């Protein structure tokens, strides 16, 4: 129960199989698998929001298939860019249940480049599909 005592959370992992070409970005994100068909969606609970340069990142807890809680890290862009996308340092708080869609790492580490976040009521909080080049051209 140690994990529960610390308020960690939830989860199950689903991989969204989508069609499409590789995303492009001005700068290398070589560690992330940018293929659309590798986009991954996970439900989790926010652990920490790090609102700093060079890039905002957020951690969340989710259970893997064996029931073990895994701490994930999701990368965004700079704080200024996130403000332009409607995200502020107060948008997410520890304990918030969210659905994360992200580009996973090629190395298989529990990290991702965040594409989309949805609240339990279905509200899309942020959608970086266009910024990450994931829309059909």
């Amino acid at each position, binding site marked *: *129960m140690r994990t*529960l*005592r*610390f*308020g960690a*959370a*939830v*989860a199950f992992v*689903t991989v*969204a199989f*989508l069609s*499409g070409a590789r995303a492009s*970005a001005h*700068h*290398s*994100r*070589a*560690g*992330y698998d940018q293929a659309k068909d590798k*986009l991954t*969606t996970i*439900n989790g609970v926010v652990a920490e929001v790090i609102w*700093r*340069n*060079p*890039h905002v*990142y957020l951690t969340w807890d989710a259970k893997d298939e064996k029931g073990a809680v895994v701490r994930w*890290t999701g*990368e965004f862009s*700079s704080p*200024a860019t996130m*403000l*332009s*996308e*409607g995200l*502020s340092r107060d948008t997410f708080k520890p*304990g918030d*249940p*969210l*659905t994360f*869609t992200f580009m996973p790492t*090629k*190395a*298989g*580490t529990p*990290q991702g480049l965040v594409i*989309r976040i*949805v*609240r*339990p*009521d*279905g509200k*899309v*909080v942020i*959608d970086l*599909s*266009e910024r990450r080049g*994931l*829309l*059909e051209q």
Partner: protein
Amino acid sequence: MHARNLVPILAFTCAMSQAQLARAQAPAPDSAKPAAIASVPPPAGWKSCPRCQNEADRKQANIQYKVDGHKFSPRDLSGVWGNQGVGTAFRTPPPFTPWGQERFNATLGEKNTAGEPLHSKDTSGEGTGSQINCDPKGWPRLHTYNYGFEFVMLPDRVLQFFEITHTWRTIWTDGRKLPSPAPEPRWMGWNVGRWDGDTFVVESTGYDDRSWLTDTMPDGGWPHSDEMRIVERWRRVNYGTLEVQMTVTDPKTYTQPWVTAKATIPLMPGAELWEDFCVPSDYNAFNTDVFLPVATGK
């Protein structure tokens, strides 16, 4: 079970049910353009930073500040300009000298296990695909990559402030000549300016040769030597538009001058510069928590 354990368990149960609900209701990502999400507004009486605005904000600001047809003085470059630099300024270089080729080769960094560049020698502070140490970008790399800049016109100098890395350069207009040779190399060079009609001409030299003109794809950066001289020609073609063209002469690195195409930079009337420091401790945390595990799997 202790009562103190009940609260987190209830919180967990609630969170899980909410998360499961989210899974059921969340629309699957698709290729459709997402609905526009409004940017975060600045505090009342303040303006957003250039990069904090989205395209809708910029269009609205142009209307609000009556940019189209606005009166202007061609010799007043004051204002906040652009939000992303002139990324096309240095793309196709003139042929290298042997020394220049050697210097360029040295900018190529390590690769990951898939053979993709990690940009490990890029010291620019851009945060994506490179481990950062907050070395200055220098000029003219700040021309190619910035988050917006501000020209401030003073009687004896023009100041160009850059939001990214929160730095500036001074362009002296009091008639002084460039030192030859410059006593110390500078990341931003030694800069003097003069008016040629309505064109503001900036000449500079005395650069620190550790900076790049800009990064290159898929890896590395265009180098320069301490002999580099730059001539910039800036012209305010209307209230809302700056035009700029640059000539880089560096015979130690390139066999011909590098003349950039004319580029335009839009006024950002609804924006003001915020601060965007490269904070070493923040960048170290990012490298440790994000960049290195993603790049190396460790």
